[in-house]
């Protein structure tokens, strides 16, 4: 670890819609090291998927445009590559697992064909070898009777199995980076546990780096090394797993962690509640803290300027004017 694989620098991805300019991702910077498991968390619509799709260069244009920034991967800026060069990276060096398996599996191709196609294109395998490899991959992700089932179509599999097929496809070319966008939201907890173990084993076996996008703070705690917290298109806190959970320093991160009910603690009478709604990104003023309207620690300065990310510790970044007081404020809250 320590070797850098991906560096997102100052990424800005905006959508031009009838309500105006929507800054889905704004001035986003973070890195992913080789073999590192990075988690990206934050409320719905805060820009997590858009940031992942930007790395894959899959932002629909119009209305979306990557208006600025760099995405350095393998020492190349992905944003400066031609579509053809990008195609040789997508599904090969960088693979993505999407939330809804059926949107990314082709319903009229057998699952074996879908996996073997990538192997033929990216790894130059013969048709026969690729089919055999596809069966091996399906077995690896826990599809029983894989040799026979390579010839079946996606609809012949359960939701959990389709998600496994997606994972088999994503890992077929041994990607250096696997982006998993809510890979387990549509499956049950017992299947979720199986799938996450699968992804984690992959990383341990082949040194694959993982970006996991999720709402599930439990999964983050179980698997991530590093956590990036987004709010309204921007990074608001970034730190190692233990730092984020033991000393969260942004009020949003603190509130998020406190508002999930927990199995291991005494049943609290009332749950922590973050009041209000996330802001409308087309109407967000540029010179305030986007969280101010919902933040119980907000002061006058929070609506006069935007807090920039500051280094507050080893590998720990926070964008909050009052970050140095947070520990004390959190104690008072308790």
């Amino acid at each position, binding site marked *: 670890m320590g070797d850098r694989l991906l560096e997102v620098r100052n990424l800005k991805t905006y959508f031009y819609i009838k309500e105006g300019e929507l800054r889905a991702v704004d001035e986003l910077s973070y890195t992913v090291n080789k073999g590192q498991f990075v988690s990206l968390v934050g409320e719905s619509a805060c820009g997590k998927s858009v940031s992942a799709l930007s790395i894959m260069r899959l932002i629909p244009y119009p209305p979306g445009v990557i208006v600025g920034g760099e995405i350095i991967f393998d020492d190349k800026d992905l944003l400066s590559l031609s579509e053809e060069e990008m195609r040789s990276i997508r599904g090969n060096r960088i693979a993505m697992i999407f939330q809804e398996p059926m949107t990314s599996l082709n319903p009229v191709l057998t699952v074996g064909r879908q996996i073997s196609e990538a192997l033929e294109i990216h790894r130059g395998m013969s048709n026969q070898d690729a089919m055999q490899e596809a069966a091996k991959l399906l077995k690896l992700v826990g599809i029983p009777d894989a040799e026979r089932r390579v010839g079946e179509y996606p609809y012949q599999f359960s939701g959990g199995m389709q998600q496994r097929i997606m994972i088999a496809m994503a890992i077929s070319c041994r990607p250096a980076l696997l982006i998993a966008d809510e890979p387990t939201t549509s499956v049950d907890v017992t299947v979720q546990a199986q799938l996450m173990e699968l992804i984690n084993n992959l990383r341990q076996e082949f040194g694959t780096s993982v970006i996991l996008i999720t709402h599930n703070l439990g999964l983050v705690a179980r698997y991530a090394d590093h956590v990036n917290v987004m709010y309204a298109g921007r990074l608001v806190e970034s730190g190692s797993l233990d730092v984020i959970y033991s000393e969260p320093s942004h009020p949003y991160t603190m509130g998020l962690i406190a508002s999930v009910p927990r199995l291991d603690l005494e049943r609290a009478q009332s*749950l922590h509640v973050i009041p209000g709604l996330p802001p409308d990104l087309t109407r967000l003023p540029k010179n305030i803290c986007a969280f101010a309207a919902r933040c119980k620690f907000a002061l006058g300065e929070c609506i006069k300027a935007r807090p920039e990310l500051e280094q507050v510790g080893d590998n720990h970044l926070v964008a909050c004017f009052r970050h140095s007081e947070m520990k004390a404020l959190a104690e008072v809250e308790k």
Partner: protein
Amino acid sequence: MKTDGDLIQVRELVKYFPVLAGVLKRKVADIKAVDGVSFDIRNGETLGLVGESGCGKTTVGRCILRLYDITSGQILFEKTGITNLKGEQLRRMRRDMQLIFQDPYASLDPRMTAGDIICEPLLVHNMVKGKEYRAKVAELMKMVELEPRMEDRCPHEFSGGQRQRIGIARALATRPKFIVCDEPVSALDVSIQSQIISLLMRLRQELALTYLFIAHDLSVVRHISDRVAVMYLGKIMEITDSDELYAHPLHPYTRALLSAVPIPDPKIDRERKRILLSGDVPSPLLPPPGCRFHTRCWMAKDICKESLPELRNVGSSHWVACHLV
């Protein structure tokens, strides 16, 4: 099981859905969605119902509400059998029981205004007169912390959490005693989820409501429920007090289910033992013989394949259906 103070009593409830085939639409098989479950819900209590997708949770809720005709068994509401109610009696009972859905968007008519959606049940039941109508809308909207001035907006103008509030206000309109909450927060973000959970808990207190709370998120169910029932393939595997279930789960399935839930604290999660189940849930068309869970159970012995374990009382209010407990 004690019966005094029970609002709902469910006895040996069975609900099969026929699978029809051919031009004659003959029944070729049964989906055994709910296959003999019994439980009570006490007055003022919240009973949680958990289990994996397709295990029959929604079907149980809908049978109690008489939205489905049951295949066999008995359901009592306030000690009166409701399975054969008809006409005016059924209508009266319906006022007392309501449903809150998972997907607030799909369950609200997109062309109606929030106010009309909320008050529709009152019109159906002739419970409001013309001039009281607006006051009633305002009262219900305030109860769920919505601004009454938003009554003329349509569902798409509200956020997901606000739409769920509309669904809740609508369910409260007839002043029910009992509400089936079917995955009411599953589609919502963490921060909105905690808002809605808090709202449901406050309303329960203020209006003395009784809930059947269905969800697949075990942490959420534990937080809100007094007791929890765990279902698997149409059967109840374990039922007990919420704290007891989480502190001393006995059924192998409950234990696997709980261990699969990661704790949002890395230091604590690292120390937990995990039980990883293999495979998927079998089809309810052909549930396995013996214990429904034996095909995935890591403790199973021969007896589990052959005979069906009864739900047995294993102390105070703890019930388990497993041969090896």
